[in-house]
C-alpha cells in the first residue's frame, strides 16, 4: 500500500509541470510552423489541381470527347441547342468558338465549382 502511495505521489510530482518563462514564445513558434506547413500544403494541392485540370482538359480536347458525346446524343443536343437559342440568342457566340459551346459550358461549370471551393475555404479561414 505504501508503495502505491509513493507511486501516486510520484505521478503527482511528474504532473506538476515546471513553469517556463518562454512558454508563449514556444506556442507561437509552433503556430508559425503549423501555418507555414498549411500554406505549403495548400500551394501543393492548388498546384496539383491546376496541373491535373490542365491535363484533364487537354485530354478531353485531344480525345474529341465532345464530338463523341455529340454523336451519341445528337437528338438531345439539338433540342437543348434549339431551346437555348430561343431564350438566349447570345449563345451563338459561344457556339462559334473553335472548341464548341459544350466545352465552354463545361469549363464554366468547373470554374463555378472551383469558386465554390474557394469561397467555402475562405469562410472556414475567417
Amino acid at each position, binding site marked *: 500500500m*505504501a*508503495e502505491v*502511495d*509513493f*507511486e501516486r*505521489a*510520484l*505521478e503527482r*510530482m*511528474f*504532473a*506538476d*509541470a*515546471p*513553469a*517556463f518563462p518562454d*512558454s*508563449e514564445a*514556444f*506556442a*507561437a*513558434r*509552433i*503556430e508559425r*510552423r*503549423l*501555418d507555414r*506547413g*498549411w500554406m505549403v500544403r495548400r500551394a501543393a494541392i492548388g498546384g496539383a489541381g491546376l496541373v491535373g485540370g490542365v491535363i484533364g482538359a487537354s485530354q478531353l480536347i485531344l480525345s474529341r470527347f465532345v464530338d463523341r458525346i455529340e454523336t451519341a446524343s445528337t437528338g438531345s443536343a439539338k433540342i437543348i441547342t434549339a431551346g437555348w437559342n430561343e431564350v438566349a440568342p447570345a449563345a451563338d457566340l459561344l457556339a462559334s468558338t473553335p472548341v464548341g459551346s459544350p466545352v465552354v459550358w463545361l469549363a464554366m461549370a468547373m470554374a463555378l465549382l472551383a469558386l465554390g471551393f474557394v469561397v467555402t475555404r475562405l469562410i*472556414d479561414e475567417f
Partner: protein
Amino acid sequence: MAGAHRETLTSLHDVELATKAATGERKAFGELVRRHGSAVRGLLRRMGAGGAEADDVAQDAFLAAFERIAEFRGEGTFAAWVKRIAARAYLRKLQKERRLQNLPADSELPAGPGHEGEAAGRIDLDEALKTLGAAERLCVSMCYGAGLSHAEAAEALNLPLGTVKSHVKRGLDKLRTRLAPAEGVDPEGRRRNG
C-alpha cells in the same frame, strides 16, 4: 477580433479545442500548446534531454500530435496523450542517434555537494532524478511521467520487460530515499504522520 477569438478559445475544454483543431483550426491547437507545452517540455527534460533538445523534440511532438489530432477522442487527458507522443519521439531520436544502447544503468552524475545532508531538507523531483542512472531515469519518467506501462516502455526502449522493471525498481528506490522529506514518505515506504 483576433483577441476575442483567442478569449473564446481559452474558455474551451481541451476536448473541444482538439475537435476544432481536427477541422484544421490552428489557433485552437495553439491554445492546447499554451496549456500543455510546459508539461511536455518538462517531461522531456526529466527524461534526460538537454534544454534545446527537449524543446526541439517537444515542437516535433506537438506537430505530430496536430497531424494525428483526429485520433485523440478524449478518453484520457490531452496532456497524457501528447506526453506519450513526445516520450516516444524522444526515444526514437535516441535510437536513431544510437544513444540508447550506450545508456549506463548506474548514475552518471555523482551526488553533488550537499546531497548527503538532504534527508532533513526538501529536494525536488528534478534534482532527485539527476541522481538516477540514465536508463533508470528514462524508465521511471516514461512510466510515471508519460504514463506508459512497463510493457509499453519495454517495447519503446526495445529492452526486455524484466530489465525495464529492474530499472524502474532501482529508480524508485533511489527516488524514495531522495524524496522522503519532501513527500512525507520514509525510505521504507511508510507514510509519515503530518
